[in-house]
């Protein structure tokens, strides 16, 4: 049941990420719902399961993206691995700070990788605009994390990666 819920949550987040959210573009940005959901789901299922979901959802995002093939697959798998490492390090996964830090780091890393890949082809860098966009995206992603954490925990339970011994 938990696995099915995780698959449905990730599937819905990925579909919305490539359809509804970019079509709305609130404040001109696309919130990273897939990243937020990946962090929340990875905190609620075993690391090996989270990795499978990460690889598949990342692949769909890469296929929809059209540039930097592998960025999303790599990013999502990295998030799932980091959650596993965080658990092994013995950190308390129930704390809200953990998903917030992971989402903020993920948002920054993905945005930076996309922008760095554009360096050879972009001559003019509107620094103020990019900073503003990044801050808005960060704030929306963090708000989404806080809003979605309770229902996701309700669906997946509180056990997290420790549900399976070892990972």
């Amino acid at each position, binding site marked *: 049941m938990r696995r099915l819920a995780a698959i449905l949550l990730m599937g819905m987040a990925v579909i919305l990420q490539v359809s509804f959210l*970019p079509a709305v573009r609130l404040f001109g940005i696309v919130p990273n719902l897939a990243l937020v959901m990946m962090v929340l789901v990875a905190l609620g299922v075993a690391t*090996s399961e989270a990795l*499978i979901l990460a690889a598949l959802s990342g692949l769909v995002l890469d296929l929809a993206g059209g*540039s*930097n*093939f592998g960025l999303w*697959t790599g990013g999502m798998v990295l998030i799932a691995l980091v959650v596993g490492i965080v658990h092994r390090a013995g950190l308390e996964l129930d704390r809200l700070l953990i998903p917030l830090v992971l989402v903020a780091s993920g948002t920054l890393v993905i945005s930076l990788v996309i922008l760095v890949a*554009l360096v050879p082809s972009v001559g003019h860098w509107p620094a103020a605009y990019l900073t503003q966009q990044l801050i808005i995206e960060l704030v929306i992603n963090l708000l989404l994390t806080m809003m979605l954490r309770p229902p996701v925990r309700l669906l997946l339970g509180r056990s997290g990666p420790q549900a399976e011994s070892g990972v």
Partner: protein
Amino acid sequence: MNRSKANRRIIVVVALGAALVVAGGVGRLGPVLWVFEHTIAPVSRGFSSAGVTAGDALSNLTRVSALARENVRLEHENADLRQRLAADAETRSDNDLLRKQLGLDVAGTLRQAAAEVVMYAPDSYRQFVIINKGSKAGIVPGMGVTAGGVLIGTIVDVQPTSSRIMLVTDPEFKLAAKDQDTQAMGILRGQLGNGLVLDEIGQTDSIKPGDSVTTAGLGGQVPAGLLIGKVQSVNTHSNVVFQSAQIATEFRVSGLRFVYVVLGQ
């Protein structure tokens, strides 16, 4: 599950993910793309449509005060365009007659394929969309795509029943374009922040705000004369080789739903 078995599972999954990325990078994801086209794309089509409707509603809410002013401006523009259309019809008829007399081919109307946007790039910086028509509809890479009467991008990747469009506002977009009024040529480039710039215009060429910018039709599959937008401002400095101009376009990625792929003439 003991720790070594779990570690092995993690390594296998990570290796599979890496293999998929490598396969995608070298264009060997045929079966995966087929599944993608026939499962994810149809589902996301409905959500994209809902997103466009929601985006329009939000946009209208925030622009209520500006709508009346915009309406008046559009009425004036409409009257002006109808007048130009009538004049153009006369010119076209003269042009066809002269071409016939000189034994040249008479320019035909554009052949277009209508398509619906089913998917968008998932981030805020890159500007790609996927449409539900592909090589089966005669689409090939490099073709121009219009929406609302203006060029919105070019086809960069084609599958049997879907195609990917790089939008004009993508930072890597490049296309030869010209000022329709003065014939000044330049390179149209997308910019971060959804801007458009006409670059590499010769210092001796004339270009001014309000001029229409169209495709130049140099090389590739995009025909000449597709409207891109209007010149908003011109950047000229005596100590640089080229001039550049900011181009204003009516096109917004968030309102994009139906598009037309220009197949040829």
